[in-house]
């Protein structure tokens, strides 16, 4: 009921805004994004689910309907949320509303199409997090690509066409690989399952009912399927070495699209990794723990080093996303309560923080028309609020206590450190922690160069404080980040409740 309302409200909003005249599209989109936001907050308030939606937990707001039948496999309309997906849905609705506000200034062409696509994106994202049947989930998963392709391709920077195509091709190929991997599992389960539903397949897999598929034995099939899905999702996350689409997409995307791309779209990858790879095939995940953790740590360090080498503010934030998502993978592969829970918490925290930083860079760009660190200094005097927010966002990124980033990274490090399934967990954790130092390095450098010191601007523009509709989203995000940092249980309690069953596969935790 509620989930359908969320999706329908966003879709109707998208249609109305698409047909509205350009002049009113921005305001209309803002108002039309409020009903989904309120519904999702209400859902949070009355959430009564427990356990993991895939592992026989109590699914909240569940709807089930028969859709299609293909031989022995039913494809159903099945949606519902648990403590993992609800925080991400709330994150989506919050960020969509805020990014619409942040788009009022920079988007000055074809507004109705822009905001229509943003709301369509919202509907698809909610669907991704709520769907509990694979085919239904895949429909939403692919539907996300389409608005993002247009958002980058139409309103992006000078190399937008290249970036949009690269984004589209990369993620589509990845989807195909993942799709084949999952269907291999379904066919391998044979008569053990009667539908493509995620809960049914997950439970059958964990019960060890996977059979052979043609000449491929169950062990090999699980291994290959794990790899196929891992590769498919890793592109989305992204991790090194399949991250190269991300900086292109981010740098060319208009700021509000970057906010959603970093804030929510990247979480689709880690969310899917958790739901598919780490929930369905824990044995394979543990067998591959060392290579996966290595990839995670390389992403953390290499991403941070790449960010260090940039002089474009947006590129700095974009590469640092690669680094932050590495922490999520490290938390997942640790298979501890704090590791997996912290990884999920980091998805939300990073969504807010990276959204904040991208928005701040966008506001600075609106005024200065440059993103190069070297082109500006001393902005703090001219744009006090924006600069203050930038400092807050940077510190949140570095993991300043009492901010969301601190809580998330603390959980992940605690969890990774204690891991019993990851050989050499201590070494991996220690190296990953080093990433924080690099983050502090490049953020402090960028901040100090651009915000402080004597005022200087290479581009000839009069600076004025940012307008109210730019400041409101920034301040809201800072408040949310502090809220999650001081009271992580706002989300962490339900996250822990939902992630705990993932770890429960017979052996010791």
């Amino acid at each position, binding site marked *: 009921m509620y989930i359908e309302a969320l999706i329908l409200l966003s879709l109707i909003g998208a249609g109305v805004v698409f047909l509205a005249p350009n002049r009113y599209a921005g305001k209309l989109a803002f108002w039309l994004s409020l009903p989904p936001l309120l519904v999702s907050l209400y859902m949070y308030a009355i959430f009564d689910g427990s356990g993991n939606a895939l592992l026989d937990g109590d699914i909240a707001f569940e709807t089930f309907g028969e859709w299609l039948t*293909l031989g022995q496999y039913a494809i159903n309309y099945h949606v519902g949320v648990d403590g993992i997906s609800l925080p991400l849905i709330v994150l989506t609705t919050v960020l969509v509303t805020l990014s619409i506000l942040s788009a009022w200034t920079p988007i000055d062409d074809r507004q109705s199409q822009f905001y229509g696509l943003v709301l369509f994106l919202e509907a698809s994202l909610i669907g991704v997090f709520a769907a509990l049947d694979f085919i239904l989930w895949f429909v939403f998963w692919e539907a996300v690509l*389409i608005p993002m392709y247009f958002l980058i391709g139409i309103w992006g920077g000078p190399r937008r066409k290249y970036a949009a*195509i690269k984004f589209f091709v990369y993620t589509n190929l990845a989807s195909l690989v993942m799709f084949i991997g999952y269907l291999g599992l379904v066919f391998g389960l044979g008569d053990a399952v009667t539908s493509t539903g995620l809960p049914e397949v997950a439970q059958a897999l964990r019960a060890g009912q996977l059979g052979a598929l043609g000449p491929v034995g169950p062990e090999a099939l699980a291994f290959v399927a794990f790899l196929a899905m891992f590769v498919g999702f890793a592109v989305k996350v992204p991790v090194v070495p399949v991250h190269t689409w991300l900086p292109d997409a981010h740098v060319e995307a208009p700021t509000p699209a970057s906010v959603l791309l970093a804030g929510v779209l990247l979480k689709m990858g880690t969310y899917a990794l958790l739901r598919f790879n780490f929930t369905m095939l824990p044995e394979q995940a543990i067998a591959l723990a060392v290579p996966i953790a290595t990839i995670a740590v390389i992403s953390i360090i290499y991403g941070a080093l790449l960010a260090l080498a940039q002089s474009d503010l947006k590129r700095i934030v974009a590469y640092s996303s690669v680094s932050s998502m590495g922490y999520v993978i490290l938390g997942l592969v640790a298979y501890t309560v704090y590791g997996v829970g912290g990884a999920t918490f980091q998805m939300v925290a990073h969504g807010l923080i990276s959204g904040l930083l991208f928005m701040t860079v966008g506001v600075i760009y609106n005024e200065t028309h440059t993103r190069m660190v070297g082109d500006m200094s001393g902005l703090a005097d001219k744009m006090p609020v924006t600069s203050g927010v930038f400092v807050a966002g940077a510190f949140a990124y570095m993991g300043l206590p009492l901010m969301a980033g601190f809580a998330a990274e603390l959980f992940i490090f605690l969890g990774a450190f204690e891991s019993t399934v990851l050989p050499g967990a201590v070494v991996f954790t220690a190296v990953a922690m080093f990433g924080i130092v690099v983050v502090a390095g490049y953020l402090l450098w960028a901040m100090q160069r651009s915000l402080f010191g004597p005022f200087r601007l290479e581009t000839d523009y009069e600076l004025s404080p940012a307008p109210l509709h730019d400041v409101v989203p920034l301040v809201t995000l800072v408040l949310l980040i502090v809220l999650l940092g001081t009271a992580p249980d706002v989300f962490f309690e339900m996250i822990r409740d939902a992630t705990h069953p993932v770890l429960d596969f017979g052996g010791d935790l």
Partner: protein
Amino acid sequence: MELNNWLLLVPTGAFVLAALALFVIDSIDPDSTNGTLLSAVTTAGAVAAAMVSGGLLLSGAADPGVELFDGQLVVDGMSLIFTFIFGSVTALVALGSHDYIRELPHKAEYYLLVLLAATGMSLMASANSLAVVFVSLELASLPSYALVAYLKTNRGSVEAALKYFLIGALSSSILVYGISLVYASTGSLLLTDIAAEAGTAASDYPGVLGIGILMVAGGVAFKTASVPFHFWAPEAYEGAPAPVSAFLSSASKAAGFVVAFRVFVVAFPIGSVVASIDWVLLFQVLAVLTMTLGNFAAATQENVKRMLAYSSIGHAGYVLIGLAALTGVGGGTESIVLGAGMLHLLVYGFMNTGAFLFVALVERWEIGRTFEDYYGLAREAPIACVAMTVFMFSLAGLPVGGGFLSKYYLFAGAVGAGVWWLALIGAFNSVISLFYYSRVVKAMWIEEPSEPIEIERYPTALYAAIVIAAVVTVVLLPGLAVFDTAAFDAAAALL
């Protein structure tokens, strides 16, 4: 014949009656310039055919198949599904043609030819003997040649029609010769009787029967625009008026497939004829060649209409999986692949017709046909471009329309039938196709035009046809549930 049985012929009758009505209108007022009436009559007849066949299909009135006229015709689930496709496509084409041929002469003849071709196609769907197959195929083909040449002062149109006609005549003669060889070896033209004799014929006259079947396959390949008789398609679709291209590439192709499905599955059971020819292997080879050739050729085109023509060849390759995966693994899986072939043609009927009608709209605006001419169209015509985007992504198999599900059914069915390599090649082709379909999307939405596009009027009927096609394409994503059981049952009844 009982009353109920006449009811089963209502869909075909609706096409015939609408055609006769046009005759009457044209005799009363031969110089009529009132296209609205003609278009409305055609659309109404086609909609009636589609509605009745859809109703009969979903009510199960014709299960498990009713033979008429001593078994010459059969009305069953499959014939009703295809008549539904022909009715829908004809209705969309007739609606869209209203604006396209507004200033052209011979309107009544145009609609009449469309209806007569549709009649022929609906008979092809029901044909239960090789004689009826041939007659109805000619009834569908002859009006098509004339329709392609409808723009008779246009060199391209006439050249295309000539090429289409010559290859059509050649393939008809191949088909009729093949039929004669099948008759010679089995002693019957009725599909069921052929099936009964096929085993004996395959051991007594393996060469005669084998060559006969091969030639029948050739005739079918022409109608479906599959390798090796595909090369007329790009010219014919490009030269023909765009609504006619829509009609040929959607309805005519489906008509070819319904004949192929019925003749090969019913008359030539693979278990009996495998001693003389293994047509499953033949269609496996043809499917791979057709989809790969179609997709690679489409990827290199600069002209949108021609790209769509090659993509239509590619889709014929996907549907051929429906025959190529009948590897004898058993009823359940086989009825899924064969039913999936029907479902794909159903979805294709809407998305491909819509795409060609969009081309018709752009031709009507005299903007041009190349990708470059499409630059920046979305600024001027956002709604039509949204529809075209839906068609393109659905054709590519992205889950914005029914095209995703029907392709998924085909590939999953192929995996189930043990020909996973066929599914893999299909999936690979699908990825390639995204490249050229997204070029259209990119041209419309992302590129900037070199000089501003000016659009003076927005033709209502053509717009309506495009929007309806787009809405149905999207609705068929969740709504394929309405048809899938019917299609699988229809396939199971055939096998």
